[in-house]
């Protein structure tokens, strides 16, 4: 399938569906036409086409109702590829369509108070009871849990074996009795993430994703996709956060200084080199040559975003802040709010989805082949690990 075929598909679809009509009906129909994510299989929102052709679809459908990438980020970037890779046919049919249309929002129940970077030490227990599992534990930093219908969840099902081997992955029903979500106010003033308490939550076995004990492998798929989703989104030259900085720079000549000018030009070059390497990585993926660059994208994205947002605050010389109201945010709003918010929110970019230190370890060990850190917990059953 090539660009012309895809364009024809879009034209046929538009002939039958009015973008000015009901938004949800339009999005559902788009999914059914295989124009949601064209590289997914037919019947699951895709056409089994190459990934790069998605850009063509996005261009052709730019003026039609859109999904909310901010609010649906975890569903689209993390849950969907994991369900596609490990889900049963039934799970794929049940979950993918409302996930894509935004009828059902997803969150990610991975991190715990005692397990962040060392995710595999997590303690949330799932115990089998006939056709069901009973889950008890506490998760933390859960973005968007307050409006999520479903969650991807990693639990411990066998404490007797070393930490990586005793994990099992589930889809968690956020409406199930025993799920309690409490907001965590964060540095920006609002509550984007939450604590989630799981007390005697019963999940039927058909919500399990992958084999019992194979949860770490399933989680790896989620994490790999998460890093590409956070760092690898396509931008145009001078786009993204850079666009906000450039707008301010062009509108306020009286604030420009020589020092800031030099720094801005350096950041512009870094942003462009980073953008080009993202484009190159996507080309590699599209041509079926999975490159190791993916894990590095998020690392450069975080560094750049933090430098740019810090620059922006300094340039604007504005000691104010737009709004400290404590509220539960709908999504991460990088463009609708002021420089102060962007600066503070960008601090999370080097923590969420794996810290920059952990990502450097991954690049060093898995891409560059450097020796791994000495491991003290490798052959120790999880229950005997110091905590």
């Amino acid at each position, binding site marked *: 399938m090539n660009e012309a075929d895809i364009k024809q598909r879009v034209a046929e679809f538009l002939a039958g569906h009015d973008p000015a009509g009901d938004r949800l009906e339009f999005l559902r129909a788009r999914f059914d036409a295989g124009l949601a994510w064209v590289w997914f299989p037919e019947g699951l929102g895709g056409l089994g086409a190459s990934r790069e052709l998605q850009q063509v679809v996005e261009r052709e459908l730019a003026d039609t109702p859109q999904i909310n990438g901010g609010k649906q980020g975890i569903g689209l970037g993390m849950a969907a590829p994991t369900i596609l890779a490990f889900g049963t046919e039934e799970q794929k049919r049940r979950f993918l369509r409302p996930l894509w249309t935004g009828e059902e929002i997803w969150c990610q129940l991975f991190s715990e108070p005692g397990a962040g970077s060392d995710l595999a030490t997590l303690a949330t227990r799932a115990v089998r009871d006939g056709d069901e599992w009973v889950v008890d534990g506490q998760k933390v930093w859960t973005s968007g849990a307050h409006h999520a219908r479903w969650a991807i969840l990693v639990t411990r099902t066998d404490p007797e074996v070393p930490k990586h081997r005793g994990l099992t992955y589930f889809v968690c029903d956020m409406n199930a009795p025993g799920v309690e979500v409490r907001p965590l106010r964060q540095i920006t003033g609002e509550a984007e993430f939450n604590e989630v308490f799981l007390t005697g939550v019963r999940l039927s076995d058909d919500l399990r994703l992958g084999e019992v004990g194979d949860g770490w492998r399933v989680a790896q798929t989620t994490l790999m996709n998460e890093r590409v989703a956070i760092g690898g989104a396509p931008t145009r030259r001078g786009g993204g956060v850079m666009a906000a900085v450039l707008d301010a720079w062009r509108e306020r000549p009286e604030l420009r*200084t020589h020092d800031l000018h030099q720094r801005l030009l350096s950041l*512009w*070059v870094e942003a462009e*080199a980073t953008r080009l390497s993202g484009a190159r990585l996507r080309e590699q993926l599209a041509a079926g040559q999975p490159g190791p660059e993916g894990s590095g994208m998020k690392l450069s994205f975080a560094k750049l975003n933090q430098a740019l947002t810090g620059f922006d605050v300094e340039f604007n010389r504005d000691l104010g802040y737009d709004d400290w109201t404590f509220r539960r945010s709908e999504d991460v709003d990088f463009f609708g709010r002021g420089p102060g918010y962007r600066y503070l929110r960008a601090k999370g970019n080097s923590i969420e989805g794996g810290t920059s230190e952990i990502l*450097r370890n991954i690049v*060093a060990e898995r891409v*560059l082949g450097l020796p791994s850190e*000495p491991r003290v917990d490798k052959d120790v059953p999880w229950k005997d690990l110091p905590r």
Partner: protein
Amino acid sequence: MTLLYTEIEEELRASVRALLADRCPPAAVIERVESEPADLDLWKTLAGEIGVAGLLIPEELGGAGAGPGEAGVVLEELGRAVAPVPFLTSAVLATRALLPTRDALLGELAEGRRTAALAVSFAASPYRPQRGSAVRAEGGRLSGTVTGVAGADAADVLLVPVDGELYAVEAAAAVVTAGPSLDLTRPVATVTFDRAEARHAGACDLAAVLRLGAALLASEQLGVAEWCLETTLGYVKERHQFARPVGSFQAIKHRLADLWLDVVRARAAARNAVADPSAVSVAVAQAWNAGVAVRVAEEALQLHGGIGMTWEHPVHLYLKRAKSSEIALGTPGDHRAALASLVGVPGPEGGEQ
């Protein structure tokens, strides 16, 4: 447009790499740098057997009719070997200057029978093409001096731009004075003309010539950085201190991970500059890659410890090449300054747009 390598480019890379591995190992380069750096035998083989000298020359003028993409791949390999051959100076800069004239000399350059150098300071840039040059033409003869000319030591013919016109001068009719250079493998010389007999070849848009040179230099800088990164990785995996490979220490691993990210981005910038050698792409590639090559070479030296400071270990050749090519054809600062107007980021005195 693609930022990946084509199959043809990969084949070309493989043959250049194989030849260089055989004929141009680091020890051989070190051995010759103090006497006669340019390896013209190697250059004849590269030109004759692989046809690299004529890559940018159309087939009807005796060349291979390839493009900047192929030339970029050759430069990556030459950079990885700090090979002392006049590819950038003769097959890129001089050739590109001569191309619009369709001069018969192009056929000879393509075959590698003769070698040319552009008599322009290597420190000139697309933004200041005349830097370091003071030559005038009177009645078919040239007089004046050009400093910092790269490739002059190996050239049979000098191509001299004067007031938008290009002249060809036999090297024997000029005085080429090579003092010691920071870059041992691509020394620069002062070229003096004293009423030297010159042949008028045609018009010359020197800024455009230097821009293509800068675009391709980014690929060479990528090659330099890649060699430094790979060699350092190999070293820190082998070298043990405190009963561990030094590459198992996180302080070292994180530095190498960051360098790798810089190199990944340099590869994208270099490929973009050859796919689309526009003013913006070239400025980005030079502003980024020049710095990356220097940074990786400096880190390579540091992470090799004492051995990195020795003459025997080749890392110094790469550092010298990286630092010199940072200045060549515009410094990163020159290219960033150019971007200010190219992409609409005016400075404090730029005022309202």
